[in-house]
């Protein structure tokens, strides 16, 4: 570990904390439906979209209607992308002349991008045409992100409103977030990325003769415009197979830093927005503190493990940290930090290959996802997932000290707790169930590249990543098979929508309740005790459930590594 490495990590956290309020304020304006300076330019677009689709943006929806409209929109978007991918061979914008994408791969990819997962069973450069990248995939990067933030707004309203059924209008939320937040930021980010060396062209391959006289094919494309939203919307689906490790996606240490900030910035802002929405910004800071404690712990562990390096290689006469799967321009610290950011936040972009991390260094990204992607988390999904844990935490606190469970002015009762448990139980049931199945059937066992416990880690990582809607991989796993494409597709769908529906039901149930002012009998939900309780509940629920699976995979792997026992 170096001074420069710690400077990078602390600068990253410092900048994020400074951005929480300004970004949170902007998000709050969108939450309230207020006019922003951007309305002068984009207001007509917004109104035009409503008029053509027959939407009244002021019509309030109950939770069921909000859910049905959101689900149908996502289903149609998914079908649209499936069609674009299948028809790739006959559509324009295909300079490489690629064929249509196969059935099970298109199924997997369409779900993957709809569910904000961006798991990729394919290598982008050899599978997707420029048009597929733009029309099939980039739109999901925007709209799955906007859907996530809209859902968070709906839950915020559940806490903030009193004695009503209404939790907002899905179309208005989704459209405003896309037009006034994601699109303008992406325009600025795209221009920055292009200036830094990320290609943006409709051309395909350039053939060059290298200095040594060999031939090299260099693939170009509309990379920068996808890169911007890929990070900002915590999507993570790369233009190229190697994702943000590829020099064309992430050419410099500065673009790397901006990419990491892009992943976290909206999630951090949303914690502030929540506090503002429920009338006490300290509520938001308490949530952010709990998230940051977990984040800093994970970063420290991964950075330490990667900087310590691989003893197996050291014994061969090699000096330094673990650089297998890492890029020199980033180095150990920026790679370790990126891996924790991307898995804490359900992004899934990678700037280094997690499969080649040391056993413990690679366990932290896995564990981050198993906690339910609530350490900042995916845009929107992180905060609504976190609030489910908060509901459980006040319930547990209530049991321990004999107080009525309340959170930000709402009584938490049996219905909310049941629904929260239902949403949270989806994660271990699906991850462990599907991993167990794949560890015994032949088609599952055919997947891993590595042998021994590391091979098991590859399977566990894949289903964890799918259900948690992350999308990063221990990429040695050969996932482009009917078995894995099908099962991972189902896992991603369950992981997204089986959490969203109970969460919206909680929003509806909370909105209908009356306001309960804080009293001497309330458990305080700001301050150190509450932050500690939140961290504890997340670690106990997430940690204990998955500990046995981690012992079989990364921990066994680590013991072999330090003994120099190869597999």
């Amino acid at each position, binding site marked *: 570990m170096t001074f420069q490495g710690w400077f990078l990590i602390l600068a990253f956290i410092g900048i994020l904390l400074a951005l929480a309020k300004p970004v949170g304020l902007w998000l709050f304006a969108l939450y309230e439906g207020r006019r922003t300076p951007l309305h002068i330019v984009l207001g007509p677009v917004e109104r035009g979209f409503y008029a053509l689709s027959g939407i009244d943006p002021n019509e309030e929806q109950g939770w069921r209607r909000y859910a049905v409209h959101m689900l149908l929109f996502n289903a149609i978007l998914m079908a649209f992308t499936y069609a674009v991918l299948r028809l790739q061979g006959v559509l324009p914008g295909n300079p490489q002349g690629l064929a249509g994408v196969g059935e099970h791969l298109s199924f997997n990819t369409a779900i993957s991008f709809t569910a904000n997962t961006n798991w990729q069973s394919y290598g982008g450069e050899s599978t997707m045409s420029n048009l597929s990248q733009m029309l099939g995939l980039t*739109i999901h990067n925007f709209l799955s992100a906007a859907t996530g933030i809209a859902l968070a707004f709906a839950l915020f309203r559940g806490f903030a409103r009193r004695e009503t059924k209404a939790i907002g209008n899905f179309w208005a939320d989704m459209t405003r977030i*896309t037009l006034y937040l994601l*699109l303008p930021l992406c325009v600025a980010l795209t221009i920055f990325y292009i200036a830094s060396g990320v290609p943006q062209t409709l051309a395909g391959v350039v053939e060059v003769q*290298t200095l040594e006289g060999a031939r090299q094919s*260099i693939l170009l494309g509309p990379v920068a415009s996808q890169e911007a939203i890929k990070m900002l919307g915590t999507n993570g689906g790369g233009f190229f197979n190697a994702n943000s490790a590829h020099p064309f996606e992430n050419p410099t240490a500065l673009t790397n830093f901006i990419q990491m900030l892009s992943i976290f910035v909206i999630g951090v802002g949303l914690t502030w927005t929540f506090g503002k929405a429920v009338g006490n910004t300290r509520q938001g800071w308490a949530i952010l503190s709990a998230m940051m404690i977990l984040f800093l712990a994970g970063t420290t562990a991964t950075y330490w493990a990667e900087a310590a390096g691989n003893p197996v290689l050291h014994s061969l006469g090699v000096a330094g940290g673990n650089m297998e799967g890492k890029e020199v321009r980033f180095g150990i610290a920026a790679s370790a930090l990126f891996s924790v950011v991307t898995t804490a936040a359900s992004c899934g972009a990678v700037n280094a290959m997690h499969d*080649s991390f040391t056993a413990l260094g690679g366990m932290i990204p896995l564990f981050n996802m198993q906690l339910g992607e609530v350490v900042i988390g995916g845009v929107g999904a992180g905060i609504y997932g976190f609030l489910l844990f908060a509901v459980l935490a006040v319930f547990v606190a209530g049991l321990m000290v004999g107080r009525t469970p309340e959170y930000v002015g709402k009584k938490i009762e049996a219905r909310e707790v049941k629904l929260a448990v239902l949403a949270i139980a989806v994660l271990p049931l699906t991850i462990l169930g599907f991993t167990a199945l794949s560890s015994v059937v032949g088609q599952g066992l055919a997947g891993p590249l590595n042998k021994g416990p590391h091979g098991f880690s590859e399977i566990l990582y894949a289903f964890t990543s799918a259900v948690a809607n992350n999308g990063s991989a221990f990429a040695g796993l050969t996932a482009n098979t009917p078995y894995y494409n099908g099962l991972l597709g189902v896992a991603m769908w369950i992981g997204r929508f089986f959490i969203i529906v109970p969460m919206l039901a909680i929003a509806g149930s909370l909105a209908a309740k009356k306001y309960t002012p804080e009293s001497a009998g309330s458990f305080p939900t700001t301050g150190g005790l509450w932050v500690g309780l939140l961290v504890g509940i997340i670690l106990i629920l997430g940690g204990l459930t998955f500990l046995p699976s981690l012992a079989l995979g990364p921990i066994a792997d680590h013991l072999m590594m330090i003994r120099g026992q*190869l597999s």
Partner: protein
Amino acid sequence: MGKDFSSALRPAIVMTILFAVLLGLVYPLAMTGIGQTLFPAQANGSLVRDARGTVVGSSVLGQAFTADRYFQTRPSAAGKGYDGLASSGSNLGPASQALVDRVKPDVAKRRAEGVPGPVPVDLVTASGSGLDPDLSPAAALTQAPRIARVRGVPVDRVRTLVADATQASILGDAHVNVLALNRALDTLSGASTAGARPR
């Protein structure tokens, strides 16, 4: 529930079309136009040309160097090595036999060149993309004696080239772009010891 569904149908279909046009066509095409106007070199892959105007590579992307007279690049898992159409890491786990089998001969090769101490780790490990354009300064300096010997130039001049080409960053690690370094190397031997370049 039925009413909720029927009321959703039109907005869901129309919004899909509208957003597909805005985000899937207008946005990337407008960005392409802006990029091609403001930063045409970068937008088209930062291509590098030699004196005759032939494209020899991209300054952003790595290419394979295996000859003894050049700074050699890291091992690559992209296709058969530095394949611009097949970026990839090795994905080998830390305690994998295959990793050891790959690293061992690479270490032995450096020993045969006369590298005495520990071998810098990036020189014998595959990058994440398989297209890493850089080396660490240590991995480049390790190769300086061999290059000086093969090219018949003083080793200090080679070391100076590395020092001049090293890019420091507080947000990442210090690195040297191998293509830029090797092009500088070619001009160096051409100017100082013409004819001394063995082929």
